[in-house]
């Protein structure tokens, strides 16, 4: 396994005129190996979404460096960022973010159309992907005709059709019920296992995090703790995560 993503002393401070600067991220360093499934856990306001935005090149760090496959993200120019995202990253968002103007097939094609890929390639990739994600019957439907779980699987297909180096998932189960949540998480696990898709998921749900191989706990903009799954099965890993969270919360109480 090789290192895919590397963060070194990353900082993010928001300064707005006339207000105290807010430090969202303080000295964050970690790496993600190729083929890993990593979860970043934290409460709202912990800075986990800021972190994801930095990795996604949607925002700039105020300090430190982020490299993806050896490429320094700071050196990707503003104008080339969209292309960079299109070619290297895949996104899954909490609210699916499907375009209601397109049917399912066109929603999935979108990043490839933007990249001006030939139609034959799009169709070939979609055929494989649709089968894997179980959305073959939905291709001609429109987003408003789908359930939340179906929409999120379509969003996953859109994120994966570019065969990204890393799949970034921002609270992917946040808008789903427990059954469809676990279906989606199983799906991500499968994709990770079968095609060694690297996944970085941001979540506040212990259950979601328990499907990953490694969990980074983040609090007040700092990495608080790290937990490897190792040989544990998912329910056991969940227990470990819960324990860690309890410890974290308790410590927070002590800190006051």
């Amino acid at each position, binding site marked *: 396994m090789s290192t895919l993503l590397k963060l070194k002393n990353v900082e993010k401070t928001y300064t707005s005129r006339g207000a105290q600067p807010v430090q969202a991220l303080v000295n964050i360093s970690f790496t993600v190996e190729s083929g890993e499934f990593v979860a970043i856990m934290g409460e709202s306001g912990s800075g986990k979404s800021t972190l994801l935005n930095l990795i996604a090149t949607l925002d700039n760090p105020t300090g430190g460096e982020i490299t993806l496959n050896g490429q320094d993200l700071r050196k990707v120019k503003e104008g080339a960022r969209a292309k960079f995202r299109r070619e290297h990253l895949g996104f899954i968002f909490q609210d699916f973010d499907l375009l209601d103007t397109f049917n399912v097939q066109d929603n999935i094609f*979108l990043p490839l159309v933007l990249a001006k890929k030939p139609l034959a390639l799009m169709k070939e990739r979609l055929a494989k992907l649709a089968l894997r994600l179980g959305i073959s019957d939905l291709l001609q439907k429109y987003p408003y005709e789908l359930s939340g779980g179906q929409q999120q699987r379509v969003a996953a297909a859109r994120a994966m059709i570019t065969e990204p180096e890393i799949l970034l998932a921002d609270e992917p189960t946040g808008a789903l019920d427990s059954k469809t949540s676990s279906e989606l998480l199983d799906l991500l696990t499968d994709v990770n296992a079968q095609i060694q898709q690297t996944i970085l998921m941001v979540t506040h749900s212990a259950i979601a995090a328990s499907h990953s191989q490694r969990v980074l706990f983040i609090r007040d903009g700092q990495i608080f703790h790290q937990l490897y799954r190792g040989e544990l099965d998912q329910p056991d890993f969940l227990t470990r995560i819960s324990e860690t969270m309890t410890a974290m919360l308790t410590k927070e109480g002590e800190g006051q």
Partner: protein
Amino acid sequence: MKFYFKLAATNLKADRRLFVPFVITTSFLMAINLIMLNAYASSDVLFSEFGASAGRSLFMFGSVITAIISVILVIYANNFLRKQRIRQLGLYNIIGFGKGELSKMMAIEKLLLLLTTLLLGGALGTVLSRISYLTLAKTLHVNHHLAFGLSQKAFSIAGMITIGLFIILMFIDEIWLIRKQPLDLVREQSAGEREPKIAWFTLIFSLVCLIAGYTLAVVITNPLEAMSMFFFAVILVITGTYGLFTSGSVFVLKWLRRRQNYYYQPKHFINVSNLLYRMQQNGAGLASIAILVTMTLITLATTATLFFGINEIVNAQTPVDLSYSLKTNDADAANRVTELAKTHHVHVRSIRTFSGPSSTLALLEKNRLNSQSSINGPFGFDNARSVQLMTIANYNRYTGQSRSLNGNNILIYTSNHYAGNTLIIGKQSYHVATRVSSFPNAPKTFIPNLFVAFPSETQMLAALHHLYPKKTLAELKTDVTTNQDLMLSGSHANQTKLYQDLNKSGIALPDTVQSRAVNYDDTTSMMSSFLFLGIVFGVTFILATLLILYYKQLAEGYADERRYTILQRVGLSLREVRSTINSQLLMLFYLPLVVAAIHVGFALPFVQRIMMLFGLPDWQFFLTVSLITLAIFAVIYVLMYRLTGNVYYRIVSRRQPTSRR
């Protein structure tokens, strides 16, 4: 009840960005209606005798069209408004507002909007109507104290139109509310956004309407018929345009989407799907723009042509400086008129005298000349000729030539080509021995001239008898008028005085004196008022177009905001977003302009035929003025594009892709 008023007022205040443009739209429309109705009401004062009926019918036409446009525009605006508020209404529904309470709340909102509109629109309309009246009176040299230019009737009709509009809106809202299930209100925003189906009936019906309208414009070559069918053709084209924009656009876009090689290009991909998605509500707006642009172009081009064609019109109507008819062959009349002219410092350069029967309308069928009463029903203008019969002696006296004819030989002059060697009038066939290519002072009208000179009076009377079968030969023989055509030199004012004096002098028959100078004044005042109206219309149409465009961009900006955020996340750069937006805006902007250009292309020949009635047969001149108008308008249109496009772009790109919904 007080509670509802408070609530409605709060809603209006909170959603200013929706309601302010709405009230501006309704107020402005009311002001337009007021201006038109006031102008219509004062048309009797403004147009003294001359052109009064033409002016009145023009104003009437304008009033009806502005009322129709008002209804369509306001319904469009209201639909937009309601769609933007669905979530808010759903929220009220959830916290315990039943349908009854909701409809009461919405009705009171409408009531408040109506009162604001009546106040604002009334004030704006009053000011603009007064300015219009004063400007018109000044241009037309009418004493503006004759009337105030504001009519009570106009105010009550405009008020009634506005109130009626709001009642329609309340009715539409009510029906919409009744058909909704309570929870639908919350879900509406996503459920309402489904892909439009092709409305085949609308598509075919509007296609038929448009083709029928175009056909009328092409087929009807008779100016009088063109005038009477104009309104009908306009209605057909308007109906067709609205239908085609809503259903035809869906049809075309779906066809484009099926062409995979075209569709799966980044720009086309986003544009086609975006357009398709919202074409049904957008179509009406675009159709309104297309029609407004068409109306602007035609109105401005027509009135400008009439204005700049004043000289041509005057020359066609009064080919000589002064003409009059005499009772009998009064040999002394010429001298007396010359003397009279001298007292006004006007020099008579030439006098031509014509004695003979008056000219008449007749039908030329192949080489046979018949009276127009010999066929039933409306006669075709293609065969109609303005016929002047005379003896060769009459001809020689008028032209100062010395030609001779004998036997059944005749001399003819035509303003269009006549190929035949013979001309049959009644039972007699004549041989065309001489053709003259010009005839001094021959009037230029849309009906071609046919002048025929016979060797003897007997032959001329026989021919005349055929054209006037009800009159006896003896009657025809005495029914002779003498006309004198004078060319003058002298100032405009002096010629006008001479005209007035000659009318009083009793030398000429009453009501037969015609002066080019006087006609010039009359025509100038009428065409100036037409141009004024054209400009008022044009400005109104342009402002209405601007309002719709602005509204449309606002609505679409809000609707597309989220879409472009997603696109940026998925990998569309800001620059690509900008270029995609630009190409979409361009399409939405230039589509109405292109449609308008096609409409104008069909309408111009049609309008030109109507203008022939004014004595403007020159189509090249009309075309030139139209093209200049089009060029000026295109510049204004591009400015409007810049202005409203910015509104859209600001909304769409204001949000960073990082921010969450």
